[in-house]
Every structure is written in structure tokens, then in C-alpha cells.
């Protein structure tokens, strides 16, 4: 890792000043940034340490009024929150599967949302739109973990954050602090599909930080369900986070966000439409799962993500209404 200068500011406001005007990177748990620095994928001149800023850490609020989650809250702290576990299971379940116990102790909510893609071409220094001899390296190469939606373009990585999908499904917003002040945007608006080689997949500027995430009051039912190749030390292959607004048993409106299938957290509108107006049962959930893959165009090695997405969406919907049939003997 290249040498850098280090700042450990006492507040988010000072952190933003320290990030401004230099080639700097904010550091939280370091589980993404430090490895990228070791691999020389990222070599900032200055590192600004946010994790000791206690004013932007911690979970507060309740199910009736909504939650405020400081960006520097560790995943372990998030998981120990009773209200998250009981009222926001979509978020709790997704966080509980992230990485390993050590990662959960180190990683923060802000860092998780802003972690950079794990595409192996990006991590090997070829950028987010890796091309060689005019050809897209992902399309031509090993793309087994890559996208199945938005695959007409050159950005074929998948958005890596396990927390983004549930937070988007729950309608959460992120508060961003930068040199020009503070703004609040939907969590979904943190992400974009890069078009040019130097575009980021994050919409926030390098001198801006996420200070907190705000989750609206919990109404209806929510859940996440994911499929993984390995139980730990890895990211989900596909995950679905759903949030259902119910009228009795009937779905009044639904959010279905799928992880692992696109360069941004993917809103499966067709699945949302399919389940709206229905009671969630094995049949309607399966139909919504089938609808979720409408328009998917897999690459050469990741066609398996089609049936996986169908099942994962189906199971997330059923889990939301308390049907976890796959856990019964």
C-alpha cells in the first residue's frame, strides 16, 4: 500500500473539510478500502478516519416513528438493535449474513453502502468498464458472478452492498454531507450505472460522506432472503428484499429489490406488479418470482441466476408473511 497522510477528525463537519481539495478517501471499518489500497486499485494521498466520530454512530428511534442509523454504526451494533431485529427483519436478515463475525465488528453501515464493486476485473485494476483490445473483458471472460440485467452496456459488475437492497425496499434515505452542506436523498439515488471509464457507480462525490440513514416507520411486512455459494466469507449470489403494505392479507403495494443481478440494486417492478392486489401464497409468490426475471439477459456463465432470482424473490415474499417452508423438515 502506498504511503498516505492520515486525519482523524472529531466531527463530520471537520471530516468533510479534511476531504476537500485533496485526493482523499474516507475510512470507516476499512474492510473494503484497505484491501483496495493494498492492491493499488485505490491510492489516496490522504485518509480521513470517520469511525471514531461518535456523533454519527448508533441506532435510535422505533418502529412507529422510524429509525435513524448513524453511518459509523457497525454491523454488529445494528444487529444488536432489538427494533431492527423485530420490526425491520429485511435489514436485520441481510446484515446478519454479511461476511464474518470480524467483518461485522469492523464494517459500518456507511462503508457498506459505499463499498466498491467486487468484480474481479475491477479489483485487478481494469476499472469498472474493463476493456481490452476493444472488447469488454467481463463479457468475453469469466462472468459467473456478474449482472443479468442492464447487460447491454459495459458496466457488468453487480452492486455489492447487502444493506442497500433492504434499505431501498424499506424506503430509506441517506443524508450526505459535503463542502456545500447537507442533503438527503433516497438510498437508491446513491447508485448509478457508470457510462464512461472514469464515472463512479456512486453518485456522491469523493469529498462527500454519508452521515446517516433514515428508515421510515415500519408498516406492513418486510423480509430478505438470499442464496449464497459459501455460508461465510462471501457475498450473496442473489438476494431479494421485500416490503409489503398489506390490507388484511391483500398486498396494497410492494417493494421488491434484488441484489446480485445488476450494477445497481435492482427494482423488480414486474414482480411488484404481479404481487399487488393478491394475498401472498405459494402460487402468487412463485408468479411474482417468475415476473422478476422479465427482461433479464444473462452473460455467458451466469444463466443460473435466472432460476435463482425466481426462487429468491418467491422465498423473500413468503418469508415476509411468515411462511418459511424450506426450513421445515
Amino acid at each position, binding site marked *: 500500500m502506498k504511503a*498516505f497522510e492520515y486525519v482523524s477528525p472529531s466531527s463530520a463537519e471537520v471530516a468533510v473539510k479534511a476531504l476537500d481539495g485533496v485526493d482523499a478517501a474516507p475510512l470507516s471499518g476499512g474492510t473494503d478500502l484497505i484491501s483496495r489500497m493494498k492492491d493499488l486499485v485505490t491510492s489516496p494521498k490522504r*485518509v480521513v478516519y470517520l469511525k471514531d466520530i461518535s456523533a454519527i454512530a448508533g441506532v435510535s428511534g422505533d418502529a412507529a416513528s422510524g429509525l435513524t442509523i448513524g453511518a459509523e454504526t457497525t454491523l454488529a451494533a445494528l444487529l444488536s438493535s432489538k427494533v431492527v431485529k423485530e420490526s425491520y427483519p429485511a435489514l436485520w436478515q441481510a446484515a446478519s449474513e454479511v461476511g464474518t463475525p470480524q467483518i461485522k465488528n*469492523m464494517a459500518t453501515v456507511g462503508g457498506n453502502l459505499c463499498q466498491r464493486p467486487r468484480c474481479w476485473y475491477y479489483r485487478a485494476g481494469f476499472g469498472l468498464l474493463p476493456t481490452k483490445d476493444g472488447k469488454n473483458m467481463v463479457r468475453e471472460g469469466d462472468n459467473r458472478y456478474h449482472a443479468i440485467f442492464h447487460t447491454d452496456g459495459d458496466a457488468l459488475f453487480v452492486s455489492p452492498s447487502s444493506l442497500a437492497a433492504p434499505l431501498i425496499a424499506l424506503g430509506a434515505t441517506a443524508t450526505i454531507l459535503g463542502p456545500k452542506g447537507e442533503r438527503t436523498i433516497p438510498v437508491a439515488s446513491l447508485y448509478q450505472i457508470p457510462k464512461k471509464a472514469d464515472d463512479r457507480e456512486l453518485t456522491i462525490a469523493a469529498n462527500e460522506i454519508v452521515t446517516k440513514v433514515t428508515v421510515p416507520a415500519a408498516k406492513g411486512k418486510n423480509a430478505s432472503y438470499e442464496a449464497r455459494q459459501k455460508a461465510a466469507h462471501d457475498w450473496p449470489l442473489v438476494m431479494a428484499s421485500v416490503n409489503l403494505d398489506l390490507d388484511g392479507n391483500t398486498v396494497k403495494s410492494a417493494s421488491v429489490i434484488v441484489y446480485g443481478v445488476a450494477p445497481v440494486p435492482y427494482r423488480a417492478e414486474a414482480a411488484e406488479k404481479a404481487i399487488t392486489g393478491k394475498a401472498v401464497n405459494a402460487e402468487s409468490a412463485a408468479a411474482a418470482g417468475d415476473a422478476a426475471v422479465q427482461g433479464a439477459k444473462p452473460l455467458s456463465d451466469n444463466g443460473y441466476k435466472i432460476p435463482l432470482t425466481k426462487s429468491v424473490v418467491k422465498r423473500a415474499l413468503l418469508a415476509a408473511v411468515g411462511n418459511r417452508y424450506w426450513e421445515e423438515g
Partner: protein
Amino acid sequence: MADLDQKPKVGASRRDFLRGSGIAAATAVITGPAVASLDEAKAAEPEYKVVADTVTLKLQVNGKELSTEIEPRCTLLDTLRNRLDVTGPKRVCDRASCGACTVIIDGATVYSCTTLAIACQGKKVETVESFDTGPTGVPHAFVQHDGLMCGYCTPGFVTACKSLLDRNPNPTLDEVRKGVDGNICRCGTYIGVLEAALAAAKAMKGA
């Protein structure tokens, strides 16, 4: 040599500013040519302290205060092993992916290979060296239950188990499995590790 304990004055000192701006690379060369731009430096004084080169780091390791000089880019693992001769934590993947370097900071296990030493100033670091090696300790249970082969992953597993038992003295097998999820053993000693953790839990209760 900068000292990390030194509180950043509101507006870092001229020294820190100069160091941060890279004008003066070595402390010894602080005066001289830089004086000319003192006014300019003062005007631009930021409210934070920039550490740009070597600093003296004080770490609480296993109850002792240890001190060494580091650069901001030194990881906790390399600092412990190469500068403080605390060699229990091992370096295997060096990328937060295997657990061999696991240490306990302020009660929580972390990968020391992916933690900056400079961020640990003032924090309590516990490594495998400090654990009870007597008959009710986790290391003893590993020996009794064949929880190791080559031993390279072992300090990390012992640390993960010890931390788990500190928080949960009565773990189920499944909880032990989850507790050591962050550690990988290339030799495949998992069965022994799980047995050792459960046996240590029993031994600690005097059973």
C-alpha cells in the same frame, strides 16, 4: 516526531500543517525556508491534524503499554508482529479473508491485517499471548481436542473462540460454528476446533 496523544489545537500547529502539506518532510527541517510562508500557513490552518510521516504510537497490548514508531499505512498486524514482537496473530491472506490475524479490540474480534495501527491509539488490544493456558483455558482445550495441525490458523481460531465464550459462556454447537465463521483452516481441523470450544466452555464452568 509527532505524538498522537497531543490534542490537535483548534487549527493544527504550524508544524503539523507544514508536515501535512508536505513542505517539511522531516521534523528536523521544520524551520528555515518554511518561515517565509508562515503567514500564509497560519491563514490556511485547518481544524484538524494531519499525520504525514512517522509518529509515535502508544498501544495497550495485553495490559501493557507498548510504544513504537509507525507510518499511517502500517497495519495493526504488521505493527504487532514486526515492531512489537507480538507474533501470536499470523499473516496469511492479509485481506480480511481468513482470520489468522484475529485480535480483540475493546472486546470485539477484528482482522488486524485490515486495521490501521494508527486508528488503535488508546484502544485495548488483546492477543492470544494473554490467554489463560491452564486447564480451563481455550488453548488447553485445543491441545486436548486436536484443534490444530500445522497451527498457522490456530491463534486466530483460539482468539475467536475465546471472544465467543467471553460473550456467550454457554454456546450451542451452532453458535460455535457461527462464532468461528470468520476463520479458515487449510488443514481442516474444524471438528477439533468445535469440540475444543465446547469443552472449554464446560471447563470454564468447572464442569
